[in-house]
């Protein structure tokens, strides 16, 4: 039952964050790129003022899988690195913490370009 509740929280919170993006798509003229940038920087800033961490504790993957969660990892990494290394941690922590995800995207993206041929747009 506890496990079910974990999934419900992740599903609902993740879905609502996506709906915030859907709201921007349908009601503003912001391009996709701007919305993604807004979500990452927004996630980082919310983390900086301490508002995003509680959401991550509550919803788990529902808060970390959307791009706001990428911003959370970046900012959290910077904060933890400042705790450990002082000032220069601010310059290394974000990238260190998100290195695996970014590297995965680049490597799998490259592999994809080797394996797959362009598709006609649906």
């Amino acid at each position, binding site marked *: 039952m506890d496990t079910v509740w974990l999934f419900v929280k992740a599903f609902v919170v993740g879905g609502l964050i996506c*709906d915030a993006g859907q709201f921007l798509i349908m009601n503003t003229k912001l391009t996709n790129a701007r919305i993604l940038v807004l979500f990452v920087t927004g996630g980082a800033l919310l983390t900086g003022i301490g508002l995003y961490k509680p959401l991550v504790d509550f919803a788990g993957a529902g808060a970390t899988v959307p791009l706001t969660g990428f911003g959370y990892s970046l900012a959290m990494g910077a904060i933890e690195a400042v705790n450990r290394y002082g000032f220069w941690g601010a310059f290394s922590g974000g990238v260190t913490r998100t290195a695996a995800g970014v590297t995965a995207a680049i490597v799998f*993206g490259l592999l994809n370009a080797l394996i797959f041929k362009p598709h006609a747009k649906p």
Partner: protein
Amino acid sequence: MSRQPFTPDQYRELVSKLTPPSRMLRGYWRAFWVGGLICAVGQALTLWAEKLNLGEVTAPMFTTSVLVFAGTTLTGLGVYDRIGKYAGAGSAIPVTGFANSVAAPAIEFQREGAIMGVGARLFTLAGPVLAYGIASSVAVGILYWLARGWVL
């Protein structure tokens, strides 16, 4: 001739009046359930990582990397663009959408070559996201460092 409650024009007017809200709701619903489902898959991966005894540091790496792999592969197969057409932000906002934004231009611009085609276009969307994301993490880190200095 049978009795017509509406003329065709009136009917069309009524349709256009009623359509936007329901289409809007449909957009929100699709983004909600697809985005939520992707996050639920992420939650399943997190639980799996716990079962595999991956540590607190490596478990999120595992979850993210698997989702990114799924995102790029579905992009290569041409499936993710279809999901995107259906779900809008529901597929763009999760990290799989970030993976899609990396993989899609890399595949599409193959003919421009391995360096300026694939290598550069890989970052068409990821570039801005990484640039501003990393910059804001540095800003947060420095502000945190300053605040910590004042408090202590």
